[in-house]
C-alpha cells in the first residue's frame, strides 16, 4: 500500500536523482531561450533620439553598482575588433580617448583602437555593452553594421549596469542611439 511517507521518500529519491543528473551535466549550458537561439534583436532596440542625461564611460566605471539604470555615451572602439562576430556585444570607449586620426596628416586605418593611447588607459576607459536574453546571455547575433552601428560611431546607450567578478562592469543595453554626441572633454586630461 502506498503511504504518504513512502510518497515523500520516493519524491526525495527522485529529487536526489534529478539533482545528481543536473550536477553531472555541469559542463552543459542552461537551457537557451528562443531569442538566443534565433539571434533576434528586441524590437525598438535602436532609438531615434538620444536618451537624456548621458554619463561618460569613465564616470560609470569609477563606481559601478549592479542593477543601476544608466544612460552612457561613448565611441565604439577600444580594440582592433570592437565587435564580437555572432554575439550582441561591442566595446564602448570614453570620448576622452583620442583616436590617432585626430592628429593632423595621420592616415591611421584603425583609429578606433586608440593605439596612440597607453593600453592601461584604454582598458580603464572602455566598457563592454551587450544585448542579452531573458537568461542574461548575449544574443547570438552580431551588431556590426546593424542600425548604423560601426567602429568609431558615437553612441548613447540606455541600460542597466551588471557588475561581475573583480568589480568589472558591463552595460546591458535596452536602447541604443547612434549619432554624434556632445563631449565633456575632447582631449586627454
Amino acid at each position: 500500500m502506498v503511504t504518504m511517507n513512502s510518497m515523500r521518500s520516493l519524491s526525495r529519491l527522485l529529487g536526489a536523482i534529478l539533482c545528481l543528473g543536473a550536477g553531472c551535466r555541469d559542463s552543459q549550458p542552461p537551457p537557451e531561450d528562443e531569442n538566443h537561439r534565433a539571434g533576434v534583436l528586441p524590437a525598438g532596440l535602436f532609438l531615434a533620439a538620444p536618451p537624456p542625461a548621458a554619463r561618460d564611460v569613465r564616470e560609470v566605471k569609477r563606481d559601478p553598482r549592479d542593477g543601476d539604470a544608466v544612460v552612457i555615451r561613448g565611441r565604439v572602439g577600444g580594440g582592433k575588433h570592437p565587435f564580437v562576430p555572432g554575439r550582441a556585444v561591442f566595446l564602448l570607449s570614453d570620448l576622452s580617448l583620442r583616436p590617432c586620426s585626430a592628429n593632423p596628416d595621420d592616415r591611421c586605418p584603425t583609429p578606433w583602437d586608440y593605439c596612440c593611447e597607453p593600453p592601461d588607459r584604454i582598458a580603464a576607459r572602455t566598457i563592454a555593452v551587450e544585448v542579452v536574453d531573458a537568461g542574461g546571455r548575449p544574443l547570438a547575433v552580431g551588431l556590426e553594421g546593424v542600425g548604423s552601428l560601426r567602429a568609431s560611431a558615437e553612441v548613447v546607450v540606455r541600460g542597466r549596469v551588471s557588475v561581475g567578478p573583480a568589480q568589472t562592469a558591463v552595460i546591458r543595453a535596452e536602447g541604443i542611439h547612434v549619432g554624434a554626441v556632445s563631449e565633456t572633454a575632447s582631449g586627454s586630461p
Partner: protein
Amino acid sequence: MRLLPFDYAIRNLGRSPHRLAATVLGSAVVVGVFVSAAAFLHGMDVGLARSGGPENVLLLGAGSEESIERSEIPPAHAGIVAAGVRGIRRRFDAAYVSPEVHLALAVSAGGAPPRLAPLRGITPGAFLVHPQVRIAEGRAPAAGRAEVLVGARVAARLGVRESDLAVGRTLRFERRDWTIVGRMKAPATVMDAEIWCPLNDLMLAARRTTLSCVVLTLDSADLADVDAFCKHRVDLQMVALRQQDYYDSLREFYAPIRLIVWATAGLVSIAGLFGGLNTLYAAFSTRIRELAALQTLGFSRRAIVLSLIQEATVASIAGALLAVLSARVLLDGLAVRFSMGVLSLRVDSGVVALGLAAGLLLGAAGALPPAYRCLRPGIPEALRAA
C-alpha cells in the same frame, strides 16, 4: 586516326643510348628539385595544419596575435578564464585549460655546443588540450625536480644523437641540469621538436613572471563566447583566437619563403626544359625524312606527334620515377632545422603524384615544339631534307 605502335616510340629511344641517358638524367634532376621543394613546403604546411586543435582557442596578450613568444599574461588570468568561460570541455572535473609559457632558450646536450630550442612550460592540462601528444617512453615531468619531457625531433634541433636524449640523460639550460624523464611523440606538429617542463619550474628558471598563453578546448561554447568574455573583462587585456587561425597566420608569415622556393623550383624546371628542348630538336631533326616517309605510308601528322610525345614522355617519366623513388628513400621524414623548430620533409602520395605529373608535363612540353618544327615542311620538301 591510325596510331603508330607504342613499341615504335620505345625502339626510337634506344637509337642513341647517350641521348637517352642525358634525357633521363636531366629529367631526374629537374623533377628531383621540384619534389624537394614540394616536400619541404608540404612538411611546413602539415606541421602547421596539425599543430592546432580544431576545438582549441588561444588566449594571448592584446597586441601579440602574431607571435606567442611576445605575448604576456599574468598567471592569475588562467584561473579567471577557467571560472569565467562557460562551456569549456571537462573530464571528471578537470577543465581543458592549459596555461603555458613558450620560450626559445639556448640548450645543450651530449657535449654539443648550445643551440636555440623551443621550450614549453606546461601543467597536466596540456595533455588534455593537445591530444596529438603521446608519451612514448617514460613519464610526464614532475614539478620541482628539474625534469623535462623531450620531443622526438629535439635531437635534430640540437644536433645531437638520439641516444644523447635517452630517458635518464640530462639537458642543460638556464645554468642548470635537467633530467629527461620521458620522450614524447607528436608527429607532424611543432610540438614534436619541443622540450616540455613543468610551468612553474620553467618560469622560475627563466625568471619569467608571466604566461605566454592560455589554451582552452571548448565543448558547448564557441569562439564568440570566449571573445565576449575577453571584451567583458577588458581589464585582462587578452584576445581570443582559434588556435588553428594562429597557425594559419604563421603559415601566411612564411608565404614569401614559399613563393621563393616555388619560384626557384619553377626556374630550375624551365632551365631543364630548355636543355631538353635542345636535345629533342636535335634528335627529331635527324628524322625529318623518316617522319615524312611515315606520312606517305598513311600516318597522319597528329599520330606522328603523339608518337613523338610518347617517346619524350617515356624518357622523362623514367627520370621522374628515379627522382621520386630517390626522394622517397632519402628525403621522406628528413628533419631540417628551420626557424626555431624542426621541419620534417614529407614525400607522401600527393608529392609523388606532383613529381610524376611534372615529369609528364616536361616530356609533353619538351616534345611539342620540336615535333611541330619537324612536321611543318611539306612531304616532298621533307623527303629531300639532308
